[in-house]
């Protein structure tokens, strides 16, 4: 229960009422004042001062001074007359409560109205600030644009002037030429005509000499030369881009792994190293052995590669070449046939490989003296690569042999 303050003092004139409430030690900050037209409340815990005013006062013009341990209120009256008491003389709690509630309500309304006003004012100020900023920036931009336009006009004018000058110079040069042409026919007297003709001839020969000189001044065309070029190797036919390099490496790795994938099941191969499980590596090993002359080693490498991956035609084809060198002709025929089977979609990409396989099979047939089959293979190879002279020569040799042996058979 708050303690009611009763030792307040009040004075009045016709137009105003002055109330002085002792603050009993409370600071100015801790004092809460509610004042409306008919009610005044001063609350500084634990003290409370309430005044249900006798007559209504003008709340807008009222003022309060809080300090020095006392709160002084100056309330101008609405109607100028002397009050008998400060407060209304009812002890009725109900009316008091009503008045209190009304007062609080009006206080709330006043506060909210004030807040709204403040917000609106701030909004309006912001808008104004923004508009002025925009105006300033626009002015700046227009200025720069004007400068740019002036620059542009100046340069176009300069360009037009330069063009005009060029034209004038061209015209002048043209006029000079015309004058020179006109000058020659002017001299018509016979004596001078002779000299004139001679002069013309001289002018002509001078011009010719000049032309010859110019032609001679140019060095002769360069002697033909050829510079061989090797490129940084690149698997893909597309251009090289740094941002695509990781994708490309991924793709290549996956391709290599797909070719190795078949080797996973065979248990005997656990002894082999990682490299030896890779059919590509084995093919390269085989190629190296072949070029060193180690044909048996090459066959072994290719065989292991084939065990790992039966679908690589290159391995069969190369093994056929090794067998040819080792004179295992039947095996050579088998291997090159297998290679050709694997190269069945006959496209231009595997044309070179097919030609090689055919040639190997053809030579195996010929060494077995099955010349007709050999010729068949050579002619198929020629169909793929008609411009290969070595093939043409070999095919011709085989044809001759066949005809020669047919002739022999005939005479026998």
């Amino acid at each position, binding site marked *: 229960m708050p303690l009611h303050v009763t030792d307040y003092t009040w004075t009045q004139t016709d137009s105003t009422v002055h109330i002085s409430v002792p603050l009993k030690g409370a600071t100015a900050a801790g004092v809460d004042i509610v004042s409306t037209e008919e009610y005044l409340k001063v609350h500084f815990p634990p003290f409370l001062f309430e005044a249900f005013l006798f007559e209504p006062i003008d709340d807008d013009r009222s003022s309060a001074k809080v300090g020095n341990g006392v709160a002084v209120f100056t309330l101008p009256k609405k109607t100028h007359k002397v009050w008998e008491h400060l407060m209304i003389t009812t002890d009725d709690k109900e009316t008091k409560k009503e008045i209190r509630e009304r007062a609080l309500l009006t206080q709330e309304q006043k506060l909210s109205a004030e807040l709204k006003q403040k917000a609106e004012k701030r909004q309006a100020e912001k808008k104004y600030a923004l508009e002025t900023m925009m105006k300033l920036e626009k002015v700046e931009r227009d200025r720069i644009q004007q400068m740019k336009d002036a620059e542009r006009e100046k340069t176009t004018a300069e360009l037009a002037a330069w063009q005009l000058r060029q034209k004038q110079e061209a015209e002048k040069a043209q006029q000079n030429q015309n004058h020179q042409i006109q000058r020659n026919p002017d001299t018509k007297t016979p004596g001078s005509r002779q000299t004139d003709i001679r002069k013309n001839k001289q002018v002509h020969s001078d011009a010719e000499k000049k032309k010859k000189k110019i032609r001679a001044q140019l060095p002769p065309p360069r002697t033909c030369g*050829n510079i061989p*070029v090797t*490129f940084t190797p690149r698997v893909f036919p597309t251009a*090289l*881009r740094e941002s695509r390099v990781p994708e490309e490496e991924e793709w290549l790795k996956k391709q290599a792994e797909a070719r190795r994938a078949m080797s996973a099941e065979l248990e005997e191969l656990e002894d082999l190293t990682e490299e030896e499980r890779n059919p590509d590596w084995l093919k390269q090993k085989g190629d190296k052995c072949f070029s060193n002359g180690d044909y048996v080693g090459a066959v072994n490498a290719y065989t292991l590669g084939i065990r790992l991956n039966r679908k690589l035609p290159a391995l069969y084809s190369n093994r056929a070449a090794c067998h040819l060198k080792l004179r295992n002709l039947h095996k050579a025929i088998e291997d090159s046939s297998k290679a050709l089977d694997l190269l069945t979609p006959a496209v231009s990409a595997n044309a070179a490989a097919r030609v090689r396989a055919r040639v190997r099979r053809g030579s195996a047939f010929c060494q077995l003296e099955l010349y007709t089959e050999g010729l068949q293979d050579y002619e198929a190879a020629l169909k793929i690569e008609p411009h290969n002279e070595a093939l043409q020569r070999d095919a011709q040799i085989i044809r001759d042999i066949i005809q020669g042996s047919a002739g022999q058979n005939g005479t026998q």
Partner: protein
Amino acid sequence: MSSPLSKPQIIAHIQKSLNYTVFDSKWIPCSAKFVCLGNFARGTGVLQIYEVQHGSAQLIKEVEKAKPIKCGTFGASSLQQRHIATGDFDGNLHIWNLEALDVPVYTTKAHKEIVNSIDGVGGLGIGDGAPEIVTGSRDGTVKVWDPRQKDLPVANMEPVEGETKRDCWTVAFGHAFNDQDRCVCAGYDNGDIKLFDLRNMSLRWETNIKNGVCCVEFDRKDINMNKLVATSLEGKFHVFDTRTQHPTKGFASVSEKAHKATIWQVRHLPQNRDIFMTAGGAGNLHLWKYEYPAQRSKKDSDGADVGVAGSVSLLQNATLSTQPIASLDWSPDKQGLCVCSGFDQTVRVLIVTKLNVA
């Protein structure tokens, strides 16, 4: 406050919309005319000559050819004759007289596939020596032609037997400071840049810049080779200082990443060899200036000379369209005037100001 207008400005003076795909545009020397080369939608080539008049480009002549034309150069013609050498989609090299465009002055089947790039040297009063034209093609070969010799190239840079070919995307002449010396620089789609010496008929230097090379240019064709700029895919370009060649390290270089897209062209200003403009795949142009280092070469640990690369600073940039700008040519007569064409079927004449103070 450093005024933004003290920098060089790129001003679009004329914009002309064309009804065909234009691949190349070149100024006709000593005139205010330029040539546009391209192809119509019906698959035939076109050559148009425009003149700059009163703020617009007037069409003076138009000629249709059998095959689309990819590139052209005036580099090998004399100033009086002004013949343009063009390469087309079929691999043919033609030299045309602009007064009589029905029949070419010189023609040869240069390559098996499209001629991607062409350059000429020895004409226009620039450089000594024979006029020569170099063409680079999709078939991986680079060939040098002399207009006085029919059918056979004067030099042929082709892949070794059995080598898979890479497309040659760009070629440039350089180092033509006397009668015999010439160098050809070629850029390929796998990032290779090769410098061929035509005097010794050998490969002088090669490197790989890890991105397909779109354009190479020496800063001047007719001096001892000074700088080489190579632009590539992925928005990068490299500037090589070619005065000092180290036996193993080659040339020193500085590289910049700009444009955020392929850099299609680089062209040096004819009046100042340290200023160049790059044209990008996003339709923008950047104007750069190269600054030399305090010492252009120094001794490395073995005592051999190695070059020191300088630095490149951006002077100005401008965005002209959304489509790549595929060709750019500075006018040799008026400083700052250039013509550029892009894949948005427009050709633009630009004026770049304040290049004297840059």
